[in-house]
């Protein structure tokens, strides 16, 4: 069966969607990803959609579900690389993707996940985990 690969990078999972997904494939990704978050003990998920030339309400809803489910499983989700034409269309469609963190590219998305992770693991008196200042 066709599947979207999920890569593990340290504490984070990286998904690069490079094909025009049919609905069943999107559902499979959603299920695979929630399982991998738990089995890999991941604290962050980065979804790169820079190859997608269309995000309709089904894919938008899938991204929202992934973000909500990963949050419950103690992982942050960041969606990166949305094309400008896709962003314009999504808003006009009526889908503003509430609850989904976004970043311009993979690098900025990784920064965002790392910062969220540092803030999360920081405890008073613990000098090893000082949150990055910027």
């Amino acid at each position, binding site marked *: 069966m066709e599947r979207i690969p999920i890569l593990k990078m340290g504490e984070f999972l990286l998904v690069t969607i490079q094909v025009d997904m049919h609905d069943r494939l999107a559902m499979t990704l959603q299920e695979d990803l929630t399982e991998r978050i738990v089995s890999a003990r991941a604290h962050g998920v980065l979804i790169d959609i820079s190859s997608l030339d269309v995000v*309709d309400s089904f894919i938008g809803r899938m991204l929202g579900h992934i973000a909500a489910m990963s949050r419950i499983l103690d992982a942050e989700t960041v969606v990166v690389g949305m094309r400008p034409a896709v962003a314009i269309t999504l808003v006009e469609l009526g889908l503003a993707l509430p609850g989904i963190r976004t970043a311009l590219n993979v690098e900025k998305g990784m920064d965002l996940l790392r910062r969220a992770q540092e803030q999360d693991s920081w405890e008073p008196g613990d000098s090893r985990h000082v949150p990055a200042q910027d």
Partner: protein
Amino acid sequence: MSLLKTETAPIRSDTDVVLVRQQVRAWAIELGFGLVDQTKIVTAASELARNVLIYGAGGTVRLEALNDGTRKGLRLTFEDQGPGISDLELAMKDGYSTGTGLGLGLSGAKRLSNEFELRSVPGVGTRVMITRWK
């Protein structure tokens, strides 16, 4: 108004929905649509094709490349022989859905098109026609 070309495609599975997206994209490019216009009509087509599949239990889409003398346009007519829509006004409302979706399909497709026409007869079927002009 002259018809440059026309073609009809089946919508029987979620793979067909992907094919409809790709075909609409190819026609929009051929008609010289800009990237944002391409994205809007492809996204609208994706929403309506999924509606045909989920609510109409399958059907067809007719693509028509038009020229009204001053501009070119792409008209898409989605037809199914499903149960039809009993309350058209309610069906057009943002967020209303009898299925599990977000209820943005019809209303979103209307916002992404220049012309929109919805006809439905309960027990007979539904026809949605959208046109986007360059």
